[in-house]
């Protein structure tokens, strides 16, 4: 069975600085998706970034980028130029691409606080 591990329950960063959130996963599959979701205090889960395992290039969305290391099964999220609105809980998630009906598997989350 696949598992996702986020080893940092809490992280903090100052405005305008850069922070990296860690995620590792375990799978025997070769074709899958990895995601980072953000959950602000409003509780609405928002997709931050997506990576397809067959793509070697790291995904980037504005200030958010990932470091995808397939052999090491590592998928970290880097937030550059942090803003107060980035304060939230961040979840790393895995989803198999091999089957039509599979669910996302989530890590336990990292709470990010941003100070001014």
């Amino acid at each position, binding site marked *: 069975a696949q598992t996702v591990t986020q080893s940092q329950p809490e992280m903090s960063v100052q405005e305008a600085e850069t922070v990296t959130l860690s995620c590792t996963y375990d799978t025997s599959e070769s074709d899958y998706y990895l995601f980072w979701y953000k959950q602000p205090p*409003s509780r*609405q889960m928002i997709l931050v970034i997506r990576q397809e395992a067959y793509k070697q290039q790291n995904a980037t969305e504005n200030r958010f980028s990932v470091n995808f290391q397939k052999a090491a099964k590592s998928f970290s999220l880097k937030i550059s130029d942090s803003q107060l609105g980035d304060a939230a809980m961040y979840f790393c998630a895995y989803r198999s*691409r091999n*089957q*039509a*009906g599979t*669910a996302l598997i989530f890590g336990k*989350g990292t709470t990010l606080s941003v100070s001014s």
Partner: protein
Amino acid sequence: DVKVTQSSRYLVKRTGEKVFLECVQDMDHENMFWYRQDPGLGLRLIYFSYDVKMKEKGDIPEGYSVSREKKERFSLILESASTNQTSMYLCASSRGTATSGEAFFGQGTRLTVV
């Protein structure tokens, strides 16, 4: 805009009551999911459905059942609510994994069982 709507944002029920949590999506998605979110435990999958009338157990199905009579609606049922089912419940939907794979979430239902 993509939308997943959960019927209640907050709910308080008594122990032993039968509880229905409803979720509707307007994106014609094949897959729908129910997760439970607890502090320090992340999101845990209760049940998911990959087609109408089809369901699969997730990691923590005990004490729950689901119903999917129509493609757009996926209901979570607590047959006899207990205090240990006090939690945040999140519904999500997605297309099949041949496309983007991402899931879209509702706003969550915070259920308190007293």
